[in-house]
């Protein structure tokens, strides 16, 4: 007896049909086929992709707002809202022309002034946007469909900046919304993307609903990641937030949801055994695990102590703690850039290869002048990725000879404490764990963790001029070969001085019901081209 017959029997027996109104099967089937129920990686707690830069916000925003350019699966930015662009011979003046006939969800046309206001807001928050701001002469709308960006010096990565998938993306909003201060949340969610946000059904922490935007005009090209024709094949996409992976797994098996963005590896064997479920890699660009050290405090203010960690760490230990025995899900990473992408290099990576040298690490630590001071390791226990890495680190550091002060805490507290520059003993810290999406680590454009510009760098504040020189060289590179050369030098310098310790490269799965088609692998869930029978 299944649920429907059970309920029917119950209703017939008790006359409950009058009270409950059992769903009419035919109608329910039709509606169900037009609604895609998706379990996202996290709660959509806010919906301003410039104000809040969490991946989950970016992923939802990609449905509602469109971008001028979009990277395709080859990591090349392609025209999206833009019909054409022109750059002056000196590389200083960019003129962009928008496609005709684009509309916002409120029915208003998309105009150049909307693009200008959106770029102004985005550029206040995005690392590449900030670089553009610093060299900007003017950014103006020329007419309804044309705008011009005049720079003081050439910026060869302009199209990548406007089309990258790294958060914050340069989403285009109506001018009235885009004029909101970039550090204040927007209150209207009107875009020109393929779906509109159903605000009155939004229950933060539980549900977010998107409906197909009938007036959206997809490009003619085939869809490829954020580029091409974004054709929506369902009427409605429901995001159902499930904090508990076991519940999400059961809901997928029971057919209550259609697509789960990030099943944990422990549950994947169960899902694979179900013939109604498909499981595959979510994002081929994966993630890079991070052992982030504080370059300002003892002991990791000494490069010898930092290198001692690299010398002794076994990336396999970290990766097995994260993904278990599934060898398809991880690989060693003797460098900082995403494997399988054009700029990947192992230059200078010998220290992370071969047999681990615990004795040499101990000697190096002694040479660093370390005298057994406490080493606060702040490890978030509510994030499985940081917790697993933290357990391995505690053991590793103890074996090298560090006096580990293991601070088991939550991610919110890590977020606060890692911003403190105080000495250890006054609230300061020595290391924390995180991870970076591989899509952010394909080049230095959005890779804040690789930067080593001292006070302006990411938490830990490495100050390594050689790294910054090569970051600039990459930004100024005009050919792929020049880019590759700069990244090889950057990787070597970053490993020599240890900007941070990479703990390895790992992939995650996604899972969906067999009646769902068109799911792509990529750095975010792409809903265009996804259908349901």
């Amino acid at each position: 007896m299944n649920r429907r017959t059970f309920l029917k029997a119950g209703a017939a027996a008790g006359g409950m049909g009058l009270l409950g109104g059992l769903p009419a099967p035919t109608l329910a089937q039709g509606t169900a086929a037009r609604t895609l129920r998706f379990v996202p990686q996290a709660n959509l707690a806010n919906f301003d992709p410039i104000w809040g830069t969490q991946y989950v916000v970016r992923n939802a925003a990609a449905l509602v707002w469109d971008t001028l350019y979009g990277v395709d699966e080859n990591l090349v930015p392609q025209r999206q809202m833009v019909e054409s662009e022109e750059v002056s011979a000196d590389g200083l003046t960019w003129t962009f022309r928008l496609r005709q006939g684009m509309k916002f969800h409120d029915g208003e046309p998309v105009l150049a002034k909307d693009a200008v206001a959106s770029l102004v807001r985005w550029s206040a928050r995005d690392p590449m946007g900030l670089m553009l701001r610093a060299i900007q002469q003017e950014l103006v709308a020329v007419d309804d469909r044309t705008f011009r960006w005049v720079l003081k010096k050439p910026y060869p990565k302009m199209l990548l900046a406007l089309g990258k998938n790294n958060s914050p993306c340069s989403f285009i909003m109506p001018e009235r919304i885009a004029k909101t201060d970039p550090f204040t949340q927007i209150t209207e969610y009107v875009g020109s993307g393929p779906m509109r946000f159903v605000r009155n059904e939004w229950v933060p922490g539980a549900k977010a609903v998107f409906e197909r935007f009938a007036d959206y005009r997809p490009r003619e090209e085939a869809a490829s990641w954020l580029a091409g024709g974004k054709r929506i094949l369902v009427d409605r996409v429901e995001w159902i937030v499930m904090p508990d992976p076991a519940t999400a797994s059961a809901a997928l098996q029971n057919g209550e949801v259609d697509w789960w963005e990030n099943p944990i590896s422990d549950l994947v064997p169960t899902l694979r055994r179900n013939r109604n479920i498909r499981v595959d890699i979510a994002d081929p660009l994966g993630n890079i695990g991070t052992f982030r050290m504080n370059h300002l405090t003892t002991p990791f203010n000494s490069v010898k102590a930092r290198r001692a960690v690299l010398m002794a760490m076994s990336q396999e230990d970290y990766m097995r703690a994260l993904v278990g025995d599934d060898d398809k899900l991880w690989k060693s990473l003797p460098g900082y850039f995403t494997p399988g992408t054009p700029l990947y290099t192992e230059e200078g990576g010998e220290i992370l290869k071969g047999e681990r040298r615990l004795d040499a690490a101990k000697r190096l630590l002694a040479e660093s002048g370390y005298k057994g001071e406490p080493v606060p390791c702040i490890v978030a226990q509510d994030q499985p990725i940081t917790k697993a890495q933290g357990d391995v680190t505690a053991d590793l550091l103890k074996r090298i000879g560090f006096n580990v002060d293991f601070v088991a805490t939550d991610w919110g507290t890590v977020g606060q404490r890692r911003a403190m520059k105080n000495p250890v003993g006054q609230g300061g810290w020595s290391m924390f764990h995180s991870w970076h999406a591989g899509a952010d680590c394909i080049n230095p454009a959005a890779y804040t963790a690789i930067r080593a510009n001292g006070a302006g760098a990411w938490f830990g504040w490495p100050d390594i001029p050689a790294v910054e020189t090569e970051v600039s060289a990459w930004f100024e590179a005009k050919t792929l070969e020049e880019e590759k050369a700069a990244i090889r030098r950057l990787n070597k310098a970053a490993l020599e001085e240890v900007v941070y310790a990479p703990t390895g490269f790992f992939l995650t799965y996604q899972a969906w019901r067999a009646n769902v088609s068109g799911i792509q692998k990529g750095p975010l869930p792409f809903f265009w081209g996804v259908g349901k029978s």
Partner: protein
Amino acid sequence: MFAYVIRRVLATIPVMALVALFVFSLLYLAPGDPAAVIAGDQATPQDVERIRASLGLDRPYLVRFGSWVWGILNGDMGVSIFTNLPVTTMIAQRIEPTLSLMILTLILAVTIAVPMGVVAAWKQGTLIDRAVMGFAVLGFSVPVFVVGYLLAYVFALELDWLPVQGYTALSKGFLPWLENLVLPAVALGGVYIALIARITRATMLEVLQQDYIRTARAKGAGQGSILFLHALKNAAVPIVTVIGIGIALLIGGAVVTESVFAIPGLGRLTVDAILRRDYPVIQGVVLLFSFVYVLVNLIIDLAYTLFDPRIRY
């Protein structure tokens, strides 16, 4: 009685004031930074600082506390740092599932536990008594989430009788509403049933030794009449007290139950808010829970007069 009610209602004001002060101070002192969570993992320290300033989190303690209290006094619980929605709106969105779950659990627990306790007392020392007490020990010992997973596995995955997760509003039909709540209510009710059954048994055992019960038997009253009319009514005061105290258990249990069954209620809202350090939401929800708890206990106190006419206020 009316004067008593007024006095009790007025007495809630200092209680709520203390709760407000305690909750605000605790959150102020607790580590964690919502600005860091908002900014995301890739943000620079400068971004985090600017967001903190824009949220007013860099203001002194007294200024923030004064501003919050003034808002509460004007019926404004503030705006969520993350969702930008008024806290009252967020509570309104979430209150129905939690209230539904708690009421259903309460009905289920009282309906099952009181007869269980009565029968256990009546059949003291027998197999039935031991079975009831064994169940009570299990109810106390097995965590809500374990019961929840087991129920979901059996009744949703294996038998396909009930859904694994979610909530359907009562306005969409009684049966769909009930369908979503049966498993969570059973899971949450376990500990509550155990608590009520044990106290019912203990109190009934005491009452059944009283002289008036012997008199009732001597007068030829039936067993059912003795147990449920004479004895249970006189045992009701401690049982009702425990039911009231158990509301706190339900509130705590609802947090776990709502997560296991993905019910969008106040429990999950509280957990999400704590993890993100969404101070206005945490403060609002805790104040609400405190108020409910105080109110329930007031109702329980008043209910004593129904069971024991000797009690006068």
